[in-house]
């Protein structure tokens, strides 16, 4: 059978850096191809070439056997190739109907808006995938899951032959992911070719017919059928086997909890949250997006303080009304989104590292002691093995894994008693993940209490000794990690 899309020898470089080197790739109609690869391996560049955003330097693209040269985005859409970008590419200020229908009405060269027609186009597209969204709702007001549906519906306003999904599940909760994967399988059954890009190996095993992996801009191989196992995929991605080191807590049973939370409540956020955190412990918080897990963390950090309840640090009652009180009490928080909440991208690596402690770096006077600052920067760059030649280089120039080390390092400089990590390895590749876990384990072994909030069940199971299951703003269950498994935890979280 002739493949729907066939790439031969695609190469592309930017300013002398090879993004893609001689890549071959095929996708058949009615097939789900999972494209994997660590950050910077060339996946995004490949998509841009296939969708006509950028031309390749060399190599050929064939769609249904036909040579396609220097195609624009519009031409690729006419070939039936559509991309759903990770950021969804929606206009948050427009309605659902407009977001779905506008691409088509523009393509057809309409000059006037007929609102009835817009709604009808949108409705037809929604009917095709069984989505039920109010066409007059403003997209920005919808939850991310529904926004994703809107983006998919938009692809269905034209004759769809190949759908490329770029990390579609990154910001979805468990139920939404299940729904999306079912939808992808359904599209496959209708003969649509699908390229599915993701970091999450369990999803790959779930939906893929075939996995192709890019590493450093090269296609390093494919797996199909029986070969699709967790270990084989990891091996393909990293070129070696990665064995996760599980966390073993070393807790002194005579010690008092470093953090005690009693009946913490914040209207419209969470209610009656009660737990203890002991020194040397990693407490996992498992829950879906919107379960209240992030809100609890933000309250403990004073970012959006709780309405009532009691927080004790080292046995003493500690009111937390703002970030400074939390920090003074020894609490640190590594936020969910590295780029928007964690880092000052344009500023130097060194300045990022000391941004939490700058007030403590003044010398005898009121000015910053540059020598102490430089010494501290050098110390932490060394301690965290951050790969940077010059600490005055902007943090933007680092890789995702190194950036995340800077975010964590920012807080280690304060030597916190309680460290809260919210999704610490999102968008970090497998090798870098292992290193970040090592840092966190060591911190716990040195006597800090760690709270780990994460989407990924394996991450929590491997890196905690106790787990709180959060749902509907309440702690539903508390369990010992060794009594459960990643599969079981996954089921418990998904069941909610």
């Amino acid at each position, binding site marked *: 059978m002739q493949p729907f899309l066939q790439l031969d020898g695609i190469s592309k470089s930017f300013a002398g850096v090879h993004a893609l080197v001689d890549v071959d790739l095929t996708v058949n109609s009615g097939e789900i191809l999972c494209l994997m690869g660590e950050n910077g391996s060339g996946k995004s560049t490949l998509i841009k070439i296939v969708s006509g955003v950028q031309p390749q330097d060399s190599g050929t693209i064939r769609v249904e056997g036909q040579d396609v040269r220097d195609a624009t985005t519009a031409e690729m859409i006419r070939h039936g190739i559509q991309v759903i970008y990770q950021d969804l590419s*929606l206009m948050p200020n427009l309605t659902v109907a407009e977001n779905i229908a506008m691409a088509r009405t523009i393509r057809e060269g309409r000059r006037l808006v007929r609102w009835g027609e817009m709604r009808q186009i949108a409705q037809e597209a929604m009917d095709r995938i069984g989505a039920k969204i109010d066409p007059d709702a403003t997209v920005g007001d919808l939850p991310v899951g529904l926004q994703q549906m809107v983006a998919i519906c938009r692809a269905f306003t034209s004759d769809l032959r190949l759908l490329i999904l770029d990390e579609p599940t990154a910001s979805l909760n468990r139920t939404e992911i299940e729904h999306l994967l079912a939808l992808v399988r359904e599209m496959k059954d209708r003969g649509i070719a699908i390229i599915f890009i993701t970091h999450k190996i369990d999803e790959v095993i779930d939906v893929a017919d075939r996995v192709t992996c890019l590493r450093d801009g090269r296609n390093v191989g494919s797996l199909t059928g029986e070969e699709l196992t967790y270990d084989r995929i990891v091996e393909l991605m990293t070129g070696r086997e990665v064995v996760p080191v599980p966390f073993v807590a070393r807790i002194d049973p005579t010690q008092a909890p470093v953090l005690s939370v009693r009946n913490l409540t914040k209207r419209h956020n969470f209610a009656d949250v009660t737990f203890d955190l002991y020194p040397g412990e990693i407490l996992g918080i498992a829950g879906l997006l919107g379960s209240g897990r992030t*809100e609890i963390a933000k309250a403990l950090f004073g970012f959006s303080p709780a309405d009532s309840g009691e927080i004790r640090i080292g046995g003493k009652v500690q009111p937390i009304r703002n970030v400074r009180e939390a920090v003074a009490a020894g609490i640190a928080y590594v936020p969910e989104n590295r780029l928007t909440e964690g880092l000052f991208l344009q500023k130097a690596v060194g300045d990022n590292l000391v941004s939490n402690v700058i007030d403590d770096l003044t010398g005898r006077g009121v000015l910053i002691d540059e020598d102490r600052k430089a010494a501290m920067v050098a110390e932490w760059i060394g301690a965290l093995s951050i790969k940077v030649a010059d600490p005055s280089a902007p943090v933007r120039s680092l890789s995702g894994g190194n950036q995340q080390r800077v975010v964590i390092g920012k807080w280690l400089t304060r030597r916190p008693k309680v460290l809260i990590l919210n999704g610490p390895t999102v968008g970090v590749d497998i090798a870098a993940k292992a290193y970040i876990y090592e840092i966190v384990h060591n911190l716990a072994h040195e006597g800090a209490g760690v709270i780990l909030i994460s989407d990924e069940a394996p991450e929590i199971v491997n890196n905690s000794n106790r787990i709180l299951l959060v749902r509907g703003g309440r702690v539903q269950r508390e369990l010992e990690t060794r009594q459960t498994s990643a599969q079981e935890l996954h089921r418990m979280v998904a069941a909610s």
Partner: protein
Amino acid sequence: MKLFQRSEFYLVVLIALICIFITSQNPNFLTLQNLYGVLRSASVNGIFAVGVLFVLILGGTPDVSFPAIAQVTQYVAVLALIAIGGGNIALAFAIAIVLGAVMGALNGIIIQIFRVTTIVVTIATFNLYFGMLYVLSRGDVLFEVPRPFHDFGGTLLFAREGANGAVYGLSLLPVLWLAVMIVGWFILRRTMLGRSIFAMGGDEVSAVRIGVNTFAVRLFVFSFVGALAGIAGIAHASLVLSAIPNSIVGVELEVIAAVVLGGASLFGGKGTVTGTMLGVLLFAILRNGLVLLNISSYWYDVTIGIAIILGMSANAWQQLRARRNQVNVAVEGEAP
């Protein structure tokens, strides 16, 4: 949509309260004669405001060059009509619209090509246009505008005689303003072009991906602003019956403030013609109220400043409160 309605609703309430207050102090406020006057004096800023609204919806920082464009087009049109010894008002409008559109288009082209924020580019073109006008005109004031301006500015609809014998009626300027608003509304609401402006204001990268020709849209918006500035320039000349090279500049910040008070977002993608109209009317009524209350016109800037600060504060407070009460998590067992 609810949010727009809300900010417009509050504006209506605010305007109503101010009207009630002014009327209670001076009943002359609520006479047809006075209200016609308010509308007439608000028209020039009203026409500018529609253009500013388009730029704000498109996103990025506001355009500040429109008064300079109005100034230049007004001066050129008046000179042209003087040169041919009369002509008619349609010719004046045609000259002003074409010239204004070209001058505005330059802003659009520079912004599109060089990717620089609107306010920086338009500060530059403001200085360029305004300075060149002064240099070339040597600052000469044209006190005598040709007949057509008098005719256009003096025509009154529904004319009737007032108590003191003076004839009053609805000037053509508010009619022109209304026409501009209808055109603006139609473009924004009923054309793909208008929706593309909103799309770019919402997310320009996404707009490109769904096939919006961002260059064409941006070029249109800035040409449109320029053309409206031209129309406003002619309207202004018909109102004050002279062309003075510095008689319009200085309104830019007030107009922008009116549009923002009317609910347009400085971050793009949001704004309505109705809200814009209410913002302009609010300022016009305030100005009129000061006169009727016998308060020195020196207080006008103070009043406007306070109105802007209070308006923004109320709006900001609303948003902060909404954020506090936002439901982040549907907490089990919590009363909604």
